[in-house]
């Protein structure tokens, strides 16, 4: 049986924004129900809270030295013990969340914006510019990330801004590769061709037409890179290239107490280590959950 359609009747096309909204709502529902997402939010949320409220939550002043009580093992007065200057470790761990949670997200944001722009341009225009930029990207990626960061920090000198710029610039090529791949397949689709036929300008097609449709991979990439940014910031401050020696910082605290391990002082390195581990794992679980819902 065939249905003959009246050619004059308006064709009912499902309106796109509606569909998109339903899909988005469905995705969000799946996401908040996923156990990995919930555990990730609890772990990371705990540290975000510490970063926001910091000094209010800390039982003692994290900077107050007390040389008579240095390297005290965990006890009721100092739940996490004290460090080499007698400062309260618990307070330092709580307040230490702030520095890393300022630098890492800003660096990731910078890298994502730069990377998205490069990915859109190379993926949309292709040709010579694409070839040249991609060769540069490949050659930067041939050096381990941490080495590139070291080279740049030694060349311009360490500061909080340097950390953000360096990590952002190092991440940009990696994000650019992902975005470029997404743009390449997107640019073949009819709506892009239609926009071109309408004689729209390149920047309009890239940012108003293609960008909204590649947001999925960009969001996933942002959360994944955020985990690596925390990894990188912690590592660089462990190596002594941190932002500011006067601010409590997990990586720096670990590197300053590493030498005391042989003397049995485990608390001054264990608690900041666990703090870094739980923060990174929390963000990684969130990233994994988001990636899973976009894959469906």
């Amino acid at each position, binding site marked *: 049986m065939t249905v003959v359609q009246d050619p004059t009747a308006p064709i009912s096309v499902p309106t796109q924004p509606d569909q998109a909204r339903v899909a988005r709502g469905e995705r969000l529902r799946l996401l908040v129900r996923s156990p*990995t997402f919930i555990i990730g939010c609890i772990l990371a949320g705990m540290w975000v809270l510490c970063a926001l409220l910091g000094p209010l939550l800390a039982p003692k002043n994290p900077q107050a030295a007390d040389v008579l009580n240095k390297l005290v093992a965990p006890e009721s007065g100092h739940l996490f013990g004290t460090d080499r200057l007698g400062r309260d470790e618990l307070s330092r761990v709580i307040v230490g969340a702030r520095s890393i949670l300022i630098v890492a997200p800003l660096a990731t944001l910078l890298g994502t914006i730069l990377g998205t722009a490069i990915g859109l341009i190379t993926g949309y225009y292709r040709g010579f510019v694409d070839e040249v930029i991609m*060769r*540069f990207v*490949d*050659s*930067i990626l*041939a*050096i*381990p*990330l*941490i*080495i*590139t960061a*070291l*080279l*740049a*920090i*030694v*060349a*311009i000198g360490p500061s909080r801004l340097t950390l953000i710029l360096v990590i952002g610039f190092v991440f940009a090529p990696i994000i650019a590769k992902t975005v470029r791949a997404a743009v390449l397949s997107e640019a073949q689709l009819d709506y892009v061709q239609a926009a071109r036929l309408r004689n729209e300008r390149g920047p309009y097609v890239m940012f108003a037409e293609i960008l909204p449709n590649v947001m999925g991979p960009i969001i996933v990439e942002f959360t994944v890179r955020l*985990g*690596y940014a925390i*990894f990188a910031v*912690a*590592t660089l401050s*462990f*190596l*002594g290239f941190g932002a500011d020696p006067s601010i409590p910082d997990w*990586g720096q605290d*670990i590197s300053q107490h*590493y030498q005391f*391990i*042989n003397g*049995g002082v*485990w608390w001054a*390195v*264990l608690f900041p*280590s666990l703090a*870094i*581990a739980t923060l*990174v*794992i929390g963000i*990684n*679980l969130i990233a*994994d959950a988001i990636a899973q819902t976009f894959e469906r």
Partner: protein
Amino acid sequence: MGRFLLNRLGLAAITLFLLSIIVFFGAQVLPGNVGRRKLGPFADQAAVDALNKQLGTDKPLLSQFWNWISNLVQGDLGTSLSYNLPVTDLIGTALLNSFKLAAFAFVLVVPLAILGGVLAALKRDRFLDRAITIGGLSLAVVPEFVTGIILILVFGLWIDLLPVSANAPDGSTLFTELKYLVLPALTLVIVLFGYIARITRAGTIEALDADYTRTAVLKGLAQRAVIRRHVLRNSLLPTIAVIATQTGYLIGGLVVIETLFNYPGMGKLIFTAAQKKDFPLLESGVLIVGIVFLVATLLADLAYSLLNPRIRYASAE
């Protein structure tokens, strides 16, 4: 095959050239006045000028770059500022040490991660799969020094089973040397397991879903035979690629692990050079690490195309 090889070699050569520009820019242009940066703001201007003259950093940029490249091609990497030794000697020793640690870590992690990835794929979406993929990747994203410190606390302090320094005393046997390398290698196993297992899992799932696997099952082959003869052969291809990309990291990226365990490899050498602002050592070290990565990627491409003719033909067209 010849065309494929030429194509890849050409790309690697271009990448290498660009890499040398980036490294040169990073180590000689970005710091501004190299001599001033090395000697600090209070140093005598005459000393700064003398150092710049010795390094050749007082000349125009283009001739500096040309000098550096032409010496490099002849195998002369210059003299280290902090050690006063030829850079080639320093890098040679460090490179050998790095290869030792990398080889040991690979021997431990590759079979383990392949097993984990295949198991996860066979139990797809069940508990074991989630445990291997999520657990593996969670451990992989924890910074190496955190993993290393927890291992040191557990095996070095609380159980007191293994040495916490990777440096075996001089003249010790191979066995003792390996014993000293266990903790750093174990740290690497934890870092790498998640990546390799995840790629192996993805490859195995693709092979399991492929038509040829269906055919093999339907024609009545035993499950063991299907997995060994049809699935594994195809699923391990991407694993080779990921192992190659990790080689660059293992040879030069272990700054933290080598510092933590006091192991004299490339990572520690580059880090020391960075700390002491030893620019000649720094730029050569970084460039060598990049070359190792490019060679490893090239070898992986070759192995990949030998095992998988489809790639060879696709790029020859």
